[in-house]
């Protein structure tokens, strides 16, 4: 149960093509994360899989069965909406338990399950409140609770942790993964958080403007991005791209080096010279935004505190083993 396949799925809103032919094979029980820029079609794709929208073309298979004509309620998926979409007239308890009630579970079992879910989500004190009396993060957790309390074939999560604080987010991240593994449920998860994407995913789908740019494991994407877009999108801060001479030397139209693979040396060394434009001190890390003249702005990341400041001159030395090469059309050049 829970194998999801997309075959040439397309979606347009009137004249606007939002999803331009998506092919994807999600193994039963795996955890797939969708990432991509805002507005690229992640939510739309999720809604297509859920059955809340009709595909304009292509087919969606769940466990080998084409479900494009199956209503959402019959697809056996549960979903966390990006907009929460809580039932305003029901208490937190009612919201979380609604799906179970619909499935016809006995009252006390519903209660038991709801309370267990609420405990996991730190929602126990709010069980009898209405959504309008909750904070943003609490609402979001109710939306999560509603999805996880059932035991569906698949979870669809649309940015479920975006309104939670770091500590809770880590905790929820672990809870969701644990639950997913334990139930063996297939999960599709949309997030903007790089850490979430990298840590939770078995596989990541990188979407861009309605097209799937790459589908692979997190490390694959980090280490072997298929093209400029993926290279730039995965990793934060963003990979530095350099064209021109330095790239040509490597036999590429563009080369990319991640900020963490730039060694920072006080001025005078080899590598790329530049002036620090901004230095961000996070405590654990220091980000330097270096104006490297003709090369443009370069970002470098240093682990720990580095007492360099705007205006200082530095030289950045790329780790030769970590240089990514791209051809003129933006595709990666593999040796």
């Amino acid at each position, binding site marked *: 149960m829970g194998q999801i396949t997309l075959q040439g799925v397309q979606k347009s*809103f009137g004249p606007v093509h939002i999803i331009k032919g998506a092919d994807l094979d999600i193994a039963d029980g795996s955890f797939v994360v969708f990432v991509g820029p805002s507005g690229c079609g992640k939510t739309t794709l999720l809604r297509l899989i859920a*059955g*809340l*929208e*009709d595909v304009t073309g292509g087919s969606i298979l769940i466990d080998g069965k084409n479900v494009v*004509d*199956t*209503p*959402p309620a019959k697809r056996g998926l549960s979903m966390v909406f990006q907009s929460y979409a809580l039932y305003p007239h029901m208490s937190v308890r009612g919201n979380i338990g609604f799906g179970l009630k619909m499935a016809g579970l006995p009252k006390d079992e519903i209660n038991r399950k709801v309370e267990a879910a609420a405990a996991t989500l730190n929602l126990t004190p709010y069980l009898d409140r209405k959504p309008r009396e909750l904070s943003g993060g609490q609402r979001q957790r109710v939306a999560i609770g509603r999805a996880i309390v059932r035991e569906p074939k698949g979870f669809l999560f649309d940015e479920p942790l975006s309104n939670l604080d770091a500590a809770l987010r880590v905790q929820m991240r672990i809870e969701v993964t644990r639950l997913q593994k334990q139930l063996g449920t297939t999960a599709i998860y949309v997030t903007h958080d790089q850490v979430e994407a990298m840590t939770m995913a078995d596989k990541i789908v990188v979407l861009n403007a309605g097209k799937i740019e790459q589908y692979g494991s997190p490390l694959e994407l980090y280490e072997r991005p298929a093209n400029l877009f993926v290279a730039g999108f995965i990793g934060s801060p963003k990979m530095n791209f350099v064209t021109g001479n330095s790239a040509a030397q490597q036999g590429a139209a563009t080369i990319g080096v991640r900020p963490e693979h730039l060694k920072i040396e006080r001025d005078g060394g080899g590598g790329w010279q530049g002036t620090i434009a901004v230095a961000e001190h996070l405590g654990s890390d220091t980000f330097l935004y270096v104006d490297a003249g003709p090369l443009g702005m370069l970002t470098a990341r240093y682990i720990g505190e580095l007492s360099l400041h705007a205006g200082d001159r530095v030289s950045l030395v790329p780790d030769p083993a970590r240089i990514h090469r791209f051809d003129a059309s933006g595709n990666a050049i593999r040796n």
Partner: protein
Amino acid sequence: MATRQTQFLARSLLTPAVGLLFIWMIVPLALTIYFSTLHYSLLDPGSEAFVGLENFRYFLTDPAFLASLENTLVLVGSVLALTIVLGIPLALLLDQPVVGRNFVRLMVIAPFFVMPTVSALVWKNLLMHPVSGLFAWLAKLVGLTPVDWFNDVPLFSVILIVAWQWLPFATLILLTALQSLDEEQKEAAEMDGASAISTFIYITLPHLARPITVVILIETIFLLTVFAEIFVTTGGGPGLQTTNIAFLIYSQALIQFDVGSASAGGLVAVVIANIVAFFLVRIVGRNLEA
């Protein structure tokens, strides 16, 4: 956006309503069309004869027809304007925190509870009568000549009564619609520096656009057929000053029990109502979409 399944389901859920209304429309309509081509007096059954469009010619060439058409439009337009223009502030007022809100709301809705004939009688005799009405007494109290309502401003008087009756309808629909206005939108507008009036114009009013449309269209349908109020107060007079299409059909056809011209008149009224609705929809109809 809907999916095919929901669309299919939606169609099937719509079917009973559409089907019933279709039958409800088509059967009487067919009969009416049939009768409208007959000479058919209820007081002389058995003498039915096909007369073609004679009934229509008769109805449309009535010198009272144009006057009553005008009166109908004036009546509908004025009552609509009055109920909307007064209904919006009233709905807003009732939406405020008011001590005893339930009671006030009930008072405001109350006129709708009273049967049209009764309210017309009450207004005409207990309030507006130039000799023994309360208004006349009040006017004399402050030294004014009492207005001779049904003599000097008959149509206006009828409009006043009808507007009073329909004000609750507009108010209640608008009040209910206000309930679904998201408080945060108003807050956002306030943060944007909007005054209470601007918030009303730019946030509340657009939100009310659709309910206002509904009030206009539904009221129009009822107002086109206002009859009891006229019959009770002025009997369509003096002259033709308060004769509207509905009263005309009634007086020419039902008092006379001429089914043929009643049917023709009815069909003419349907055409007029459709024309009115067509223009209304041109004006306000886009609020119905999306």
